[in-house]
């Protein structure tokens, strides 16, 4: 009856030597592998190395990948890292990137949405028909088109969450069905050109040419990040829970400030701050906030971890699932508007081709796990930059699209391999 040893009600941390298990627990409490991190840069470095060893790679592979891609193409063609090319790269990435943000949510649930390409095409066609053929005001047609994505996504979510059809099958049916509906909506001539000076055209061809815009946005982001971090650290200190040291906050702010100002400078070297980038970044930041800072986001992660645990905790599983698919549909429709804006038309190939695969690949390449429960909206941004960089670089070098597909496929495979291996390493390190 070993357990009787600790019957003493005063079994407090002050006297852990009394019992063998309490002593052992005290040892656990200072286990260096798990908790204790030294202060300052040494601690930061050792924490970083520990994370690497245990497979918590985070955004590291994709950032390294981006740097390698940038260097390789820059060596072959010095225009690659030029202001014009990079500015265009960001603008063309926005459409696919927005779709990928929706995919991130679905992947965190541990599900997949195969319909996003078709839904984006349907939204573009809906907008074109309402605005161009029926003369509906542009803003209203835009709202209706985006809401059509919400409704379609909610419908997928309904069949998945309420009827119990696997999401893979529901959205595969959606992939075919909504593409068919889009062709039907477009009618016999197949292409509807949009107003070149309208709202939707402006999504990708409007630039805030004032130099202050890009620098202003960069400054705003950096200052906001710094203030929020400092305020958080202060509150944590006041509440007596561990907080980040000021030196670390400054370091992190600097790590954000450098790329922010470099990109702002690049935009100003070309036409200024693109509207597409502002909207894309705004959506990424807003949904990142939703995912990490609201109880809704917590519910999405909980479902990705354990559906049983989530429902026992009183979470309405079906409602969260439906809402995530509705969000994915909405983002697909929004992304579809950007893609339509790029070609200034809705046509029969809208939302077709490699769009779906690019959007899913972007989310996965950026570090969102295919196995559910792990992911960030930022991974959509990073992943889509990788895919778009490859496409842009190869176009610059005049490489055929056949080779582009093969290379993008290889990058996707590499990303999934990294995801699987890091998950396995995390399992052996007890962190998955």
């Amino acid at each position: 009856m070993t357990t009787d040893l600790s019957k003493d009600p005063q079994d407090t941390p002050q006297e852990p030597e009394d019992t063998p298990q309490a002593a052992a627990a005290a040892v656990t409490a200072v286990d260096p592998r798990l908790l204790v991190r030294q202060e300052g840069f040494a601690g930061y470095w050792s924490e970083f190395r520990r994370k690497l060893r245990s497979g918590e790679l985070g955004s590291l592979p994709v950032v390294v990948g981006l740097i390698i891609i940038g260097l390789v193409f820059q060596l072959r063609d010095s225009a690659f890292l030029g202001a014009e090319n990079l500015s265009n790269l960001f603008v063309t990435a926005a459409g696919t990137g927005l779709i990928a943000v929706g995919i991130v949510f679905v992947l965190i649930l541990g599900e997949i949405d195969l319909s996003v390409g078709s839904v984006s095409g349907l939204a573009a066609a809906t907008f074109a028909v309402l605005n161009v053929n029926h003369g509906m005001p542009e803003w209203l047609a835009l709202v209706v088109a985006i809401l059509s994505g919400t409704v379609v996504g909610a419908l997928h979510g309904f069949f998945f969450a309420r009827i119990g059809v696997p999401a893979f099958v529901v959205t595969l049916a959606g992939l075919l069905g909504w593409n068919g509906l889009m062709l039907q909506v477009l009618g016999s001539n197949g292409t509807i050109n949009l107003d070149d000076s309208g709202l939707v055209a402006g999504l990708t061809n409007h630039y805030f040419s004032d130099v202050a815009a890009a620098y202003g946005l960069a400054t705003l982001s950096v200052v906001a990040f710094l203030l929020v971090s400092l305020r958080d650290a202060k509150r944590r200190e006041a509440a007596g829970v561990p907080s980040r040291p000021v030196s670390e906050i400054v370091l992190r702010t600097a790590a954000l400030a450098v790329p922010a100002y470099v990109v702002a400078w690049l935009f100003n070297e070309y036409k200024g701050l693109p509207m597409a980038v502002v909207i894309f970044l705004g959506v990424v930041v807003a949904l990142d906030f939703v995912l990490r800072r609201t109880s809704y986001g917590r519910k999405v992660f909980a479902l990705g971890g354990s559906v049983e645990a989530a429902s026992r905790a009183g979470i309405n599983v079906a409602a969260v699932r439906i809402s995530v698919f509705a969000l994915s549909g909405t983002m697909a429709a929004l992304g579809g508007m950007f893609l339509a804006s790029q070609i200034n038309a809705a046509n029969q190939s809208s939302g077709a081709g490699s769009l779906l695969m690019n959007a899913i690949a972007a989310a996965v390449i950026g570090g969102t796990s295919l196995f559910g429960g792990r992911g960030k909206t930022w991974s959509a941004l990073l992943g889509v930059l990788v895919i778009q960089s490859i496409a842009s670089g190869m176009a610059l070098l005049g490489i055929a699209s056949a080779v582009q597909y093969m290379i993008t496929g290889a990058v996707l495979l590499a990303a999934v391999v990294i995801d699987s291996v890091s998950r396995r390493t995390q399992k052996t390190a007890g962190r998955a």
Partner: protein
Amino acid sequence: MKPAKEMMHVSATPVLALRGISKRFGAVQALTDVELEIHAGEVVALVGDNGAGKSTLVKTIAGVGPADDGVIEWDGRPVTVDRPHAAQELGIATVYQDLALCDNIDVVGNLFLGREIVRAGVLDEVEMERRSRELLSTLSIRIPSVRIPIASLSGGQRQTVAIARSLLGEPKIVILDEPTAALGVEQTAQVLDLVERLRERGLGVILISHNMADVKAVADRVAVLRLGRNNGTFDVATTSQEEIISAITGATDNAVTRRKARTTAEGTK
């Protein structure tokens, strides 16, 4: 000689009392006239063989599967517990065997899952972390960090987190369904320590266990179920393991003879 736990204060009116609980599943009479009382500051072990009706009984208390017949009394007043929510509102917390924690979320997130503290629409992580630390330290639960995912905790640590989580709703009765199954020696000890701390805080604990050593270690009383009926309630301090086991298996005669044989053997020494 009386063990310390027997001298602990036990209130007169039971916090929770089951009177004549019966439950049928089709042709099967799962529970027949079951009686059970739990006082504040008392650990009652609920034991019985597989199929004895332990889980069914727990489900009636937790509001998952209401009884067909019988009365549940809370602080002496009859109450209806027909939904899990009703049980939680009364102050009955249940920690199921399969834990119900999310591996990918950290300790704080799991403790507050489904009842997050929100400030102006935003998760108040600081307050949740502060309260988590407070709760874990009052229970002397040692966890490397409250900000690591559940996946990196040991089985015993997970079990203690699951139990701590049930305490956030400030229950008066905690039902633990086989909390030490699949745990190592030291981890079992940690969980049993925690059960004792719950008793020290004046909570009533229903401990379902197959492990007689655990039952003997922490329980004050043992309620035995056999084939859906009460088969005796024993005071742990004065009852031998063999007697409890024979009540579980129904081999009462055997136990008596075995006991007799043993006492006579001791007498002749």
